[in-house]
């Protein structure tokens, strides 16, 4: 077709072949929508950031129109105070420990089992795999009560292990790794195996290095999920020295309702690791979402 020859690249666009005027209107509408939504997305964050640098007196008087985005006398004090008013440092450390350890364990369990499901033929393999995937369709809320009772009888309530162990094997992780291993060519590992390398050596030396993109995506999603999780800590953690950040922030919010400057500095601090992770691994985030379609 003559038309398709004109535009060999497959950038899908409604704009092609329409009049310059329509084209311009489409552009204007698109930009307005995007810029408008971008503003809508940024304003709350900027509004929060601004409050986090205001002192206590200003935050109380700033509850009137018009709002001031630039603090009168910017201060870092809120970022210091939050560590003394509540055990924010401890919560931070707890969140880190939980998120990092869970992530490492998830990487181990997902890559080993995902590899077997993709590559090693054994009886019952597909049934087990699809049974694991099938549980993804069951909403997590159904396990609130049973998990609580299970952890309680194992003595894991009010412990950090209780926040780690139930999450270290996930159907999402197994699925992600299995899909990835299925998509890479098998020749390389077969060559290694013909050369006499055992399963475990092939896995560690050949397969895992190849799986870096999938492992990165899994790292990000797992870390983020654990870092942000609220329900599980809420249910099983009672001692304030074992709080993770979301639970801590929620309690803090209840006690210091009007100290917006402190609440906002805490909120910003909670987001920082995720922001760094996001900037560093942005492409894996987007890839992960578009290929698997879930968080």
């Amino acid at each position, binding site marked *: 077709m003559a038309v398709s020859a004109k535009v060999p690249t497959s950038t899908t*666009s409604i704009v092609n072949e329409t009049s310059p005027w329509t084209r311009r209107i489409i552009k204007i509408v698109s930009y307005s929508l*995007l810029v408008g939504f971008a503003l809508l997305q940024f304003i709350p964050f900027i509004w929060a950031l601004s409050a986090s640098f205001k002192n206590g007196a200003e935050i109380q008087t700033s509850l009137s129109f018009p709002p001031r985005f630039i603090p009168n006398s910017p201060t870092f004090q809120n970022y210091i105070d939050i560590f003394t008013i509540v055990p924010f440092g401890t919560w931070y450390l707890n969140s880190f420990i939980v998120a990092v350890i869970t992530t490492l364990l998830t990487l181990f369990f997902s890559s080993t089992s995902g590899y077997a499901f993709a590559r090693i033929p054994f009886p019952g393999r597909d049934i087990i795999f699809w049974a694991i995937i099938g549980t993804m369709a069951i909403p997590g809320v159904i396990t609130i009560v049973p998990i609580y009772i299970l952890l309680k009888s194992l003595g894991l309530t009010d412990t950090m292990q209780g926040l780690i162990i139930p999450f270290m094997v996930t159907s999402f992780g197994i699925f992600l790794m299995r899909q990835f291993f299925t998509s890479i060519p098998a020749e390389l590992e077969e060559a290694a195996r013909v050369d006499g390398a055992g399963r475990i050596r092939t896995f560690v030396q050949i397969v895992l290095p190849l799986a870096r993109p999938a492992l990165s995506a899994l790292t990000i999603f797992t870390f983020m999920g654990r870092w942000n999780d609220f329900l599980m800590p809420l249910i099983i953690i009672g001692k304030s020295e074992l709080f993770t950040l979301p639970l801590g922030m929620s309690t803090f919010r209840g006690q210091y309702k009007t100290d917006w400057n402190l609440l906002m500095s805490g909120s910003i601090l909670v987001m920082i690791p995720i922001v760094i992770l996001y900037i560093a691994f942005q492409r894996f985030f987007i890839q992960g979402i578009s290929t698997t379609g879930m968080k």
Partner: protein
Amino acid sequence: MAITANKPASVGNTTSLKREKLQDTIAGYMFILPALFFFTIFTVFPILYGAFLALFKINITTIDNRTFVGLDNFPKVWENEDFQLSLLNTARFSLFVVIFQTILALLLAVAVNQKIRGRTFFRTAFFFPSISSSVVISIIFLWVFNKFGILNYILSLVGIDGPVWVDDPKTALNSIMGLNIWTTAGTFMVIYLAALQDIPAQLYEAASVDGATPIQKFFKITVPLLTPTTFFVVTLGIIGTFQVFDQAFVISAGSGGPEKSTLTIVFFIYQQAFRERNGMGVAAAGAVILFVIIFSLTLIQRRFFKTEQNY
């Protein structure tokens, strides 16, 4: 494809083939057993255990000491006024959020997919809220929704005297809807964007040759071809919104108020399980009911989209 580990030496040699099969079986199970063990205990078992616990009356302090009540918990949940209210709240929440976030995500995706400057920037910016902590986002929005917050200021510019949002039973749930759409529209936009890139450009070109307007192309090409993606997005939306909890909890400071206007189903389950003396079994039954609701909605939805495709 040579996924099976048939090595050249073993061709025609049945005993070594058998040995190899056995080795594969051992290796396979060695690789999956650790994961399978924990998965069974912490995912499979709780699902079944949850359905089982729904048949008991359980005291939160003496958990092991439970009384079998059969199916009694189910009518107990169903007839509970709080449950009915929470179901209504959740259904309203889900309906609005799913419709708006889906439409918004689609429009944003189509806009980003034009040959536009700053594509990556927009994609990155829109996706960010969905990876932030729900608790933190809720706290930030409490500040935004403040009587003298930025939202009411913007409204005051166009002459609207903004409400007290989260403290008014009429607007509290709507506030959480807004916050939810704001958070997740970007995620779904990314999913739509991936699907948009699979639509062959020739279709649009052919339509242009036939004199189709951009709006016609959007409704006759883009929307129909994205039906499977829309099904997916709506399904994820329903599953997510029917389990909304964090935002409602933080916004209402753990109360579900004002006047129970932000009481969602998961909130109800949480309250039954952890704030009532004997509510754990009732909570488990509530969770089973929620599961059935979500499951049925997904099925109905699937039918709906199937017939849409077949016309």
